[in-house]
């Protein structure tokens, strides 16, 4: 083959760069498109619900609350809006966490759920619900999320310790994560076994994952974590991309890989622990959001990270919408629905041949 041809077509440097730039533009367009889709599903999610409010009423109520009666206002502002926002935020956080995890552990199966972070959170929540532990200065409705957060954060710290141990490969870290899943699941089962009927019911509902516990303070807390973490993620994008070329490769390009891993796992633990603490176990998003994004636009992390975030938000928002509409009049826990919505989307992308990036 001639050195200056691409797939048999004669081509010069300028046109190779032109094609490359067009690829970048197309990716930017995909990210923007995903963002717009998110906004659309978010609005649809807001407008949907068991009450008799019409979508038009909901939307006008957002911009001029005085146009609604007091109970209607309560539905829009205390139920619909925090739930819909929570869905978007949790999807975004878990999926971004999954994307970073998959890259730093060099494993496509890594996600907050598969590596035990969600199980640890469930265990923390189970302790709080069943034992009714309380801490001074902490409001009681924050005890369950706080305990879930602490356990989830602790589990990531364990993974963190493992990556710092000399000679431990990333496979070891992944195996440890899987061991954590089983360990915490067993502990949760034990707590369920000894708990009262009432606590058990609460616990089962918690572990199904639902946005219906969302309050404005929860939404604000998760949004604050996102605002804190996302800029650092995006800042690390170039280094994360070079890590995909191999650990020694990245290090010889001057990337301090252990520091990169440490900080990425820190971000992952904040994102995953906070989300799981507020909504319970939602398994599918953190694994599949990044894969959908990767299939759409490759592994340049400048695009992969924002796209993963948006894919997660989109799937979760769609799931929230589906959880209200699948069984009319019943609000299903969204954790049950995420896989039902995400799997077809995922399969579609796998079987449609992916873009040759």
């Amino acid at each position, binding site marked *: 083959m001639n050195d200056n041809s691409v797939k048999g077509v004669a081509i010069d440097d300028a046109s190779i760069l032109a094609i490359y730039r067009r690829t970048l533009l197309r990716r930017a367009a995909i990210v923007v498109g995903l963002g717009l889709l998110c906004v659309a599903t978010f609005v649809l999610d807001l407008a949907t619900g068991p009450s008799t409010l019409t979508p038009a009423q909901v939307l006008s109520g957002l911009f001029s609350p005085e146009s609604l009666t007091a109970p209607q206002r309560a539905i829009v502002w205390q139920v619909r809006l925090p739930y819909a926002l929570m869905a978007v935020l949790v999807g975004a956080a878990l999926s971004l966490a999954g994307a970073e995890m998959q890259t730093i552990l060099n494993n496509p199966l890594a996600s907050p759920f598969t590596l035990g972070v969600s199980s640890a959170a469930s265990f923390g929540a189970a302790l709080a619900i069943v034992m009714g532990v309380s801490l001074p200065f902490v409001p009681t409705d924050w005890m369950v999320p706080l305990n879930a957060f602490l356990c989830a954060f602790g589990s990531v710290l364990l993974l963190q310790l493992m990556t710092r141990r000399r000679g431990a490969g990333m496979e070891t870290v992944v195996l440890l994560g899987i061991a954590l899943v089983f360990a915490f699941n067993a502990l949760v089962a034990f707590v369920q076994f000894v708990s009262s009927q009432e606590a058990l019911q609460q616990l089962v509902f918690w572990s199904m994952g639902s946005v219906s516990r969302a309050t404005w303070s929860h939404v604000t807390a998760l949004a604050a974590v996102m605002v804190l973490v996302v800029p650092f993620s995006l800042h690390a994008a170039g*280094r994360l*991309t070079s890590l995909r070329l191999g650990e020694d490769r990245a290090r*010889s*390009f*001057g*990337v301090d890989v252990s520091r990169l891993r440490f900080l990425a796992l820190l971000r992952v633990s904040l994102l995953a622990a906070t989300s799981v603490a507020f909504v319970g176990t939602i398994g599918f998003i953190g694994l599949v959001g990044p894969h959908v994004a990767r299939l759409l636009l*490759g*592994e340049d992390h400048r695009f992969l990270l924002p796209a993963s975030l948006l894919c997660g938000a989109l799937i979760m928002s769609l799931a929230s919408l589906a959880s209200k509409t699948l069984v009319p009049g019943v609000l299903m826990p969204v954790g049950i629905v995420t896989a039902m919505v995400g799997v077809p989307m995922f399969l579609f992308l796998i079987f449609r041949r992916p873009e*040759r990036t």
Partner: protein
Amino acid sequence: MADAVLQVRGLSAGYRDRKVIQDLSLPAFEAGNVYSLVGPNGAGKSTLMRALAGLQPASGSVTLAGCELIGRSLSEHAKEITYMPQTLPQGVALSVLESVISALHASPIGDVGLSRHSLEQRAVAVLKRVGIIHLALDSLGQLSGGQRQLVSLAQSLVREPRVLLLDEPISALDLQHQLRVMKMVHALSRERGMISLVVLHDLQAAARWSDGIVMMSRGQLIASGTPGVAITPQTLAQVYGVRARIEHCSQGMLQILVDDVLPTAEETTA
């Protein structure tokens, strides 16, 4: 450029309880030259390369143009030295061009302040030089082993290091590409005044393309100098345990003819 010398003195590196190389001193590596690092498996060649690249903790002294490199950070190492490892990951969803550009973006290179545009042009120029411009838009995941090796070489060259460390760069290449790569490394070293240190198992290629040979065994320096000086029947017997002849072909090039395996010590006593 006579002063841009890489000097290794008293270098030790390896595992905490077992040093693979201990107190190793090497003759100076001079700018513009290609050096081949040869020796049997487990001789400590890769350990030496990784220690020089700053990828592995080491003690002793490694100086480049008089500046001590041991103890410097990875990003400072990366401004001067690039290391191309033996193994490369598979199934990465990046294009060849993207991977080369990301090698430029990973950390600051010597001549900072280049615009994005000129960095991209530099990446294209390197792909052309390595002869894989036709693969520029292909995904890394679709390449053969040999093609991946060429891409990896392009990723190293694009940073325009002062010292280029290549760990078995031609092991997966066909005859033509082996020749092309060694020829290119040779030419680039001369053009840029770059020091190239190449781990090779192919002694014939080492003899043909190197200005100097470093022959190692069990972490020790056995022989060094021009190919004719370092590669002799005696050193080959000592390092590889083979009986070999060194002859010159009609064009005057060194030919290594290996006749047999020498009996090991146990076999002799038995």
